[in-house]
């Protein structure tokens, strides 16, 4: 455990963990030359970027409940050092995902059709709204923004990340003709942790650690 903890404290390790899954499409496209993936490579990339964005958003949201539940765990403390980095990377993946979406939908020539659909179909509106929220949260993750807003207001604003997660879970489920189980794998653990956090068995201690977590992450 101390080794893992030590590793997870380091920024380069987290950077690697964030960047590696983004490179996954390289495998079927260039290494195994999977004929099904090569049929529409951009589609594979589009879906994969969205998948990683979902994964990172769900992951960063588990950091707070983990800290509430296991405040003394070194592992949890190590993870909580990287809240901003992981959160902003979820936005970065989502932003590239959306750019690829514009390209996939036909680029400039089809832009009017694409934007019309983006703003009218619940499947796409939810994705757009989540992206907008993540953009706002990324901008206000700068130290200057935290100071300008004040800790309390900053905290309230950043609770929108939960709204983004709910929107994204819908968006991901609606992307397929039948319900994709990955939505459960990605967001299930987060839901479980949040339920545990609400029914925290640690009594009064729970109150104190909740107060601790009120502090904006960028200041910790």
């Amino acid at each position, binding site marked *: 455990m101390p080794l893992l903890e030590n590793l997870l404290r380091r920024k380069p390790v987290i950077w690697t963990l964030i960047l590696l899954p983004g490179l996954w499409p390289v495998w079927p496209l260039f290494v195994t030359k999977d004929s099904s993936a090569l*049929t529409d490579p951009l589609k594979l990339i589009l879906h994969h970027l969205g998948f990683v964005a979902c994964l990172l958003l769900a992951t960063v949201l588990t950091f707070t409940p983990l800290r509430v539940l296991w405040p003394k765990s070194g592992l949890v403390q190590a993870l909580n050092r990287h809240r901003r980095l992981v959160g902003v990377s979820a936005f970065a993946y989502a932003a590239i995902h959306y750019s690829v979406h514009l390209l996939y*939908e036909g680029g400039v020539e089809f832009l009017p059709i694409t934007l019309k659909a983006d703003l009218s179909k619940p499947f796409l509106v939810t994705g757009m709204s989540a992206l907008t929220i993540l953009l706002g949260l990324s901008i206000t993750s700068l130290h200057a923004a935290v100071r300008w807003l004040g800790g309390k207001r900053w905290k309230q604003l950043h609770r929108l990340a939960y709204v983004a997660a709910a929107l994204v879970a819908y968006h991901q489920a*609606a992307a397929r003709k039948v319900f*994709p189980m990955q939505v459960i794998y990605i967001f299930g653990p987060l839901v479980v942790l949040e339920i545990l956090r609400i029914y925290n068995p640690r009594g009064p201690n729970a109150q104190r650690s909740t107060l601790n977590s009120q502090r904006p992450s960028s200041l910790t």
Partner: protein
Amino acid sequence: MLIRSPKEWELPESAATPESVYHHRRTFLKTLGFGLAGAALTPRSLFATTAGFPTRVNPNYRDPALKPTAYEHITSYNNFYEFGTDKADPKPNANQGWKTEPWTVEIGGLVRNPTKIDANELVPKMGGAEQRVYRFRCVEAWSMVIPWDGFPLAKLIQFADPKPEAKFVTFTTFNDPKNVPGQRRPILEWPYFEGLRLDEAMNDLSFIATGIYGRPIPNQNGAPLRLVVPWKYGFKGCKSIVKIDLVAKQPRNTWQVMAPDEYGFYANVNPQVDHPRWSQASERVIGEGGALGRRQRTLMFNGYEKQVAALYQGMNLAKLY
């Protein structure tokens, strides 16, 4: 400075056959009887219906403007939920011991000549197989151009001799949860079933495919026989049919049962009527445009307006989607 010595197997770009030449070569080979070679070289056990090959090209359905999608794409990018929900699933999963030969088809319901017949005996009865190049448009907004081999559905229906009260035709896929993994999970209502209005089924475009590119149809594409209705979304094309019935009332169809607000009975390709979750105004053209791919505007009735628009005169296509 990095000096790279080429491997002996590396070819300069100039040695590669230009794509246009390559495609012409294929067309040339096909007309020469590529089908015959394909059917003869492939072991029978791999494919189901081998009767009727080589097929003859039907010149009425060979629009020179349509460039057929590569065989590799057509046979490795499939929606066949019985074998998994990913496009890559059916190709490996449908070729692991699932048998499509021998295969019996039952034609019944409101007909004077109900039949139970082996697929290989059926094809000669239908006058053999012919090849037609059709557009294929999936409800998920992607498209292909597929050279299908088979026979017109109308021939089969005439053979069955419908009674006057027959107004619709239903198609049912096999039900084999023992050997087919997807059917053990309640993803859809199994077995998959589809339906057409009798006049739609009698339209000359409606087709029963037993092959692709002059070769017996691979399992993942719906061996040994499947429905092809090119002016409708791909899900209407019921695969691996075991039963065709003529009925009096409009039947349900699998996807309509699954999500009635998203998939209707008609499922006509229509760029003006969107899917509730995405636009149907355009489509990805599979296998075109390199890594970025290509998108094109979707045509009314998938480009078959002349042949089928009359079937739907006076109907509100936004309601009867």
